[in-house]
């Protein structure tokens, strides 16, 4: 029955509705795959013991006439999203024993839809990373080649879906943490417009950048999850209703910032990128070159803004109210020991960097400059999207790196996010879609193409995505 675990959400929902299968069947198929392979993949930090009970309850609801495309669908949830009564550790030692006392808004909405939570997935600690190697609980491996990383920080969620351990997953994306692992694992990964999905109940990383979103096999699946979790929420004042942005007229035009692709993208990945554009051309799209002069600075802007927000958000972990709490000789020592031992090396690095760029004397040179450059980049992207519907780039410069390949050089790891950070800085929605595989050392590794749309134009991204992947509309 393990092939049931490889169904798309859309297919599974049809079979559930037709009474051909039950949610319990789906959970068992996922569990079978987990038992067979998760000891080596390590996608999950915890598989929930009551998953089958949740599935039974979903089947019961269906018998009583309830229906929703996610009713009874097993989903994997990233470990930085709170589910009441369950551990949410953000893959950190400092939250190892933290049990959530409330549901994140996205979880509340998924529960209302009747989705089944199969487990919480591994991630880079506090979502700091692009490979899931920064987890305090050991790395996750890429199901396509276990000597390679799944990407990150939502690497556990991506690996879980790719390996058939869940039909879909929730991740969070601060600089590409949904889209880059989707690219490395051959999935669809979607980051909504900033403010479209409530951030309440997510472990905050960069509050002006964070959004939760789906990792799925198909665009239609991503759309189902997105439509379920979106909406204004009183607990997140940056959230807004659907329809907040004016509807756009479709021009069937795609802009490619060629200047950004000239260096550093693997040649065979670039070939797939061009092929994908050709496919869309054949469907009536016009492909034009565009310029985004500040986009080359995006990663530099990101590595000022993000650590500044990280150091601020992680200041709350002080061992006073919850989480790890170590005692020293005095109050300062209590804090410093708890934080020094509770946070892993990358979290400490980002806290230090953020503290530096926010220090008086350096603020104008770094944070002030980055904020101004961010405004400029946002204006450039908005102007570009007046002329075209979408901006297309590869999702990442290469397929998944080997485990440990970038361990000694944080900067090299950061460069994996070079194409994804822009959408977080500018708040635009962006999607990563599989665009083929490239051979590396006898294995075929997935690579992804990214489309960015104007604020609020999620529908446009789903349309172009379905057209590219040949999904029936």
């Amino acid at each position: 029955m393990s092939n049931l675990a490889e169904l798309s959400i859309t297919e599974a929902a049809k079979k559930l509705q037709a009474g051909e299968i039950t949610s319990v069947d789906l959970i068992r198929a996922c569990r079978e795959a987990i038992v067979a392979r998760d000891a080596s993949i390590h996608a999950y930090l915890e598989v929930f013991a009551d998953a089958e009970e949740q599935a039974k309850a979903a089947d019961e609801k269906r018998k009583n006439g309830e229906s929703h495309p996610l009713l009874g669908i097993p989903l994997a949830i990233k470990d930085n999203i709170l589910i009441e009564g369950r551990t949410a550790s953000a893959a950190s030692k400092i939250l190892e024993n933290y049990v959530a006392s409330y549901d994140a808004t996205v979880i509340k909405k998924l529960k209302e839809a009747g989705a089944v939570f199969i487990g919480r997935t591994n991630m880079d600690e506090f979502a700091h990373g692009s490979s899931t190697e920064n987890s305090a609980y050991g790395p996750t491996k890429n199901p396509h080649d276990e000597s390679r990383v799944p990407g990150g920080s939502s690497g556990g969620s991506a690996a879980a879906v790719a390996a058939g351990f869940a039909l879909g997953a929730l991740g969070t994306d601060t600089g590409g943490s949904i889209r880059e692992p989707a690219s490395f694992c051959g999935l669809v990964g979607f980051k909504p417009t900033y403010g479209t999905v409530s951030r309440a109940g997510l472990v905050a990383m960069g509050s002006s950048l964070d959004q939760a979103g789906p990792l799925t096999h198909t665009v239609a699946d991503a759309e189902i999850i997105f439509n379920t979790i979106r909406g204004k929420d009183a607990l997140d004042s940056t959230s807004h209703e659907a329809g907040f942005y004016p509807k756009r007229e479709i021009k069937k035009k795609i802009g490619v910032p060629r200047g950004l692709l000239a260096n550093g993208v693997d040649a065979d990945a670039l070939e797939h990128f061009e092929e994908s554009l050709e496919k869309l051309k054949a469907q009536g799209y016009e492909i034009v070159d565009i310029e985004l002069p500040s986009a080359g600075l995006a990663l530099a802007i990101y590595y000022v803004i993000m650590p500044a927000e990280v150091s601020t958000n992680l200041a709350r972990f002080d061992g006073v109210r919850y989480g790890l709490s170590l005692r020293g000789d005095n109050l300062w020592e209590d804090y410093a020991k708890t934080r020094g031992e509770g946070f892993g090396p990358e979290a400490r690095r980002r806290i230090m960097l953020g503290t530096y760029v926010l220090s008086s004397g350096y603020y104008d040179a770094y944070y002030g400059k980055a904020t101004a450059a961010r405004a400029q980049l946002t204006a450039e992207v908005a102007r570009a999207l007046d002329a075209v519907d979408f901006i297309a780039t590869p999702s990442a410069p290469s397929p998944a790196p080997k485990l440990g390949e970038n361990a000694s050089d944080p900067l090299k790891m950061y460069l994996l996010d070079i194409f994804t950070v822009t959408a977080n800085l500018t708040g635009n929605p962006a999607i990563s879609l599989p665009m083929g595989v490239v051979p590396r050392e006898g294995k075929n590794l997935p690579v992804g193409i990214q489309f960015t749309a104007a604020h609020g134009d999620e529908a446009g991204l789903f349309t172009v995505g379905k057209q590219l992947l040949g999904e029936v509309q």
Partner: protein
Amino acid sequence: MISKEEIQNLAELARLKLTEEETASLQKDISNILDYVGQLSASKGVSADKEASTDHPLMTYREGDASLSAPLVHNVMREDLPRLASGKAGTPHASDDTLAGKEESLKAAFPKRESGYNVVRKIIQKDE
């Protein structure tokens, strides 16, 4: 390269206890990252004038061009009246509040608990 003393000072500000070894590796890592982000200061295109840098960047990107698109970030105001965490009108801690009934689970997370209170260290201590 950033000095050892600077790293130690930052660690003090950030409330982090670092080992000698990590202090040395952070000197190197943070210097490399600062070199990389230094291209922001070097780039001519970016104007860091006060006006552009004090507002939220997502708020001002279409100044004078408001008809084109709603700003991504805008002020959110509400009446200064008691309301539930769920956003509904009412007194906080009413039975249908998002956090109603959560008191026990919040307290259960306290690292050290005594008669329902969170035990914390004395902040003002006698000089010894």
